[in-house]
């Protein structure tokens, strides 16, 4: 649920619920992006080394 939806209220319940969901999702999402990004860099680095 996002603040632009009609059910949204600016209250503690929404902050806690949606904040916790957003927090957990962000940690997982950022962790995955880091792993995929680093793997792309590692693979590219390996290819470069093989080329030399």
């Amino acid at each position, binding site marked *: 649920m996002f603040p632009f939806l009609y*059910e949204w209220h600016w209250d503690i319940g929404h902050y806690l*619920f949606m904040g916790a969901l957003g927090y*957990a999702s962000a*940690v997982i999402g950022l*962790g995955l992006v*880091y792993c995929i990004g680093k793997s792309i860099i590692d693979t590219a680095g390996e290819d470069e080394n093989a080329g030399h």
Partner: protein
Amino acid sequence: MTTPAIPEGVKRCGSRQFLLWLGVAALVVLWGVYAMYRIWFYGLNQTNMNNAYGFALWIWADLAVIALGGGAFFSGFLAYIIGLKNVKNIINFAVILGVVCYTSALLILGLDVGQPLRGWFIFWHANVHSMLTEVAFCLSVYLGVLIIEFIPVLLENPKIQKVRFFHHLSHNMHEIMAVFAATGVFLSFFHQGSLGGVPGVLYGRPFAFREGLFVWPWTFFLFTWSAAAVGPLFTASMCRLTEAITRKKLVKDDVYHLLAKISGWMLLTYIIAKSIDTIYWATVTAPSMGFALMDFYSNNPLYNIWILVAEIAVCGFLPALILITRKGRENKKLLFGAAILAIIGLLINRWVMVLQVMAAPLMPFQEEWFMYSPAWTEVATSILPIAYGIILISLAYRYLPLFPQEKELNPGN
């Protein structure tokens, strides 16, 4: 048999034998899928649910698999956060079991909601006052965490490892697994707890209602604690069963002993807390609503006081006392006997908190109990997760290096 897709240094059965094994489980899955089709297509009149039983057999199955799947989050906590190296020898298997349990739990919820195509409403139009919303959030996101924990295991397949990107991805995911595991522990704590939080708002059901701390009834903590205590025992028992079926030793005994010791102490503290909760409920909460303890354990054909004795004494204190002693842990029969008792105790607890709650009288003057027997559709959909689990675990065992100690323990295969 060895093929390029089978991990190096281990032997597996022939393809024909394997397909036959999968075929038997697939038949049970098909039975469950047919029952699901009938329920989704024709509606809940295909079940024996009625006005008294809004929760059916599959809700018990749902709570049971979620609790037993707790082995994944607690093993992850022990392996990645506490840093117990021995637990890493069984963590892959715990993760697979977790994936099986949590995908089954979501499947059952999809069945219970009745309109799975509207499943996204729970996120988009979230009711922040509903514990079901919290459970749905945590279950879905935690399943995501489990799948992330499962991906590196999947990428360890020899064929997949040949692709360099996947090789690096597997390595990099292992590197930050503690972050994912910590998120998983956070999510598990809240969804296990929220399932136990339901009795805190069941003011109209004296058998279930519990008081507690602020907005959390004591059952909030008891549910989380029991899942953390029994989950690893379930993982160990399933691993032992896999050993018996494959006739191979897959993990060293010290892994079992460690899990049993931790679970034993967790189980003992849990069952003491559960006993205190039960005594307070029986002597203060229920009497304040006009009920005596035995009102909930008499005048019906199924639920008598022995169900309470079985849950707390036979399947609670007894296995806990076996598991905390070195002699108990070192005797395999005692160890796994105690583990099975603890699992049965957990299943009884969830049964009581789902189905006995629905059966028990609501008013002090009400004598009749609402008895219920599930329809075949409910049985089929509740058994489906077991057959599906057999298929997924069999495939994972065959093609993935689930057990790091397998090669060492079976040198001649």
